[in-house]
């Protein structure tokens, strides 16, 4: 079992508050990513769960039992750090066995557990290697195996892939995904890479400026961001501001029908993802503009289009557009996402 609840957690270093009022519920067997830019306090949150950092306030509950006050070595949570931090004086096998030895388990059991975990993490055959004889990816897998083998109730992964190159990162991400699906260990996965978080998690918790901004499924965060900053974090840069009247959003650049939305007279901010804007030569269109800049990115080309006072970013498969060119754009109404208005800015 391993239902983890963080309740209004406050983390401080000296007088500086790093994390404020952080609440998150992780169901048993769930993999939740804590996503956020560098320095927002992601590592600190994991350390608080592991017990390596004393929270200034709030509660941490595991299956209903409070963890704060329990020494880290008594908590059923294991943390895997950004660096592999393998013990250089032990070989691969001994490193993996470390947690089991600390529990004084029988040798035969330790041998069996190690063998199965080494198979799971694709380390079979490397047991006798010294640490400095391993590649970076292998080291990180040993570090993962060392944590998994003790079968923790909660696994805390602190950017375990960030020191690997792109290819290896992908492989390790898939491996972690697979292992988590198989073992169903409740997992908190910290990362600053949105693609990683979206690909691996059941749910994502986005942390900005020390506060939890949105929790939800990867699709929710990506397609229905709670506010413009969340949208921006996932690469959404197109914002339309205006007033909602008679089934449409009236902005300075144009009128966009929003079927299924009601609330006449409200000032609204809406967003549309760059890849959802369609540049077309024929047929109905919503906006016209002039190409300001283009950037070829391989599978798509990023195009900056000035339309009135609004600069829109469009991701299009068409790589032939050039600056100065006039283009027509279609904004599919179903792709326009309206941010829920903040309570204090609502107008009657």
């Amino acid at each position, binding site marked *: 079992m391993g239902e983890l609840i963080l309740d209004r957690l406050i983390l401080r270093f000296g007088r500086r508050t790093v994390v404020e009022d952080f609440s998150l519920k992780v169901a048993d067997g769930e993999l939740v990513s804590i996503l956020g830019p*560098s320095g927002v306090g992601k*590592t600190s949150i994991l350390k608080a769960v*592991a*017990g*390596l950092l004393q929270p200034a306030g709030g509660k941490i509950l595991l299956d209903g039992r409070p963890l704060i006050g329990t*020494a*880290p*070595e*008594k*908590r059923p*949570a*294991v*943390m895997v*750090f*950004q*660096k592999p*931090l393998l*013990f*250089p*004086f*032990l070989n691969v096998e001994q490193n993996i066995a*470390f*947690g089991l*030895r*600390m*529990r004084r388990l029988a040798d035969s059991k330790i041998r069996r557990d190690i063998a199965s975990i080494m198979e799971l993490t694709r380390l079979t055959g490397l047991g006798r290697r*010294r*640490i*400095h004889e391993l590649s970076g990816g292998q080291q990180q897998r040993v570090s993962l195996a*060392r*944590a998994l083998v*003790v079968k923790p109730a909660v696994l*805390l992964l602190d950017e375990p892939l960030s020191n690997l190159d792109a290819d290896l990162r992908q492989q390790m991400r898939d491996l972690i995904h697979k292992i988590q699906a198989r073992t169903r260990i409740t997992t908190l996965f910290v990362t600053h890479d949105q693609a990683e978080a979206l690909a691996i998690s059941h749910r994502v918790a986005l942390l900005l400026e020390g506060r939890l901004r949105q929790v939800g499924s990867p699709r929710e965060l990506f397609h229905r961001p709670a506010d413009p900053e969340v949208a921006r974090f996932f690469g959404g840069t197109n914002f339309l501001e205006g007033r909602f009247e008679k089934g449409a959003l009236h902005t300075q650049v144009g009128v966009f029908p929003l079927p299924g939305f009601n609330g006449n007279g409200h000032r609204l901010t809406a967003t549309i993802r760059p890849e959802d804007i369609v540049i077309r030569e024929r047929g109905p269109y919503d906006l016209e503009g002039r190409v300001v800049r283009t950037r070829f990115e391989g599978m798509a080309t990023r195009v900056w289009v000035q339309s009135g006072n609004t600069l829109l970013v469009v991701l299009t498969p068409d790589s032939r557009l050039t600056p100065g060119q006039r283009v027509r754009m279609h904004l599919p109404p179903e792709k326009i996402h309206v941010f829920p208005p903040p309570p204090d800015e609502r107008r009657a």
Partner: protein
Amino acid sequence: MTEERRPIPLKRLPRTGAVRPLALLAPALIVVLVLFGGGLILGLPQSLGYLPAAGMSKISLKHFQRVLFDPDFFSSLGLTLYVAGVSTLIAAALSLLAAMALVESPRWLLFIFQIPLTVPHLVIAIAMAFLLAPSGMVARLFQNLGWISGPGDFPLLINDPFCIGILLTYVWKEIPFMTLMILSALKNSGMEMLDVGRTLNAGPWQRFRYILLPILLPSLGAAGLIVFAYTFGAFEVPYLLGQTYPMSLPVWAYRNYSDVDLAARPEGIAIGIVIAVGVTGCIIASQRLARGQKRRGTVF
């Protein structure tokens, strides 16, 4: 990327294990090699009995023999080993504690802690004499406080059979050196590995035994061997604070060498050479340890 946020003044230390230890050992080496023998090259013939000025020109091992079979040699050797061993062990144990206490301390504290490194042994020995002699400052303080009635009540800490004064001098002087040597090992992922151990359910004793000791033992051993070598060959502290019998090997060597009887000189040099061999052995062993460590990537 996470920025490094711990204060790490140790970056300024020479990165290799060789430079600093050699610099610190220089006085001992000079005393042993130059003062007692005018260098091995000059000393060796004399220790073999070649000293034409004294009318001796027959080369033999008899001076070494005479030294090695002298019962005083073993009491001297024992005393020297006792002083070097005990002071090294005490300093090592205290350095472990000091390193753990200092690993997260601010820079200025570390700076203060390094001050003893710059004070010569001789100065500390003289200070110890002033402090701990039966008529010294501590004894007088105790007398003024009424804890003892006179100098005679004060325990013998200088020129005493247990070499308390000598041990105190060495311990005080060597702790900062050893602490700095192991601090660098501790800062180099050591603390993080302790955290890893904690989340893997290692209790305090287990963390000490299965993480801290294995991480620190190589540098502690390397530092310990250097300190041991130094104290084994150093002359000034036991000369000032030691008792008259038995003498430590370096003092004995010096006594023989400066004896009015020129015939004693080859024996003095022979002792010096025995000391030099011991010191050199320790340094080689220390370098081995440090190098092994570097290969494993834990230290320096």
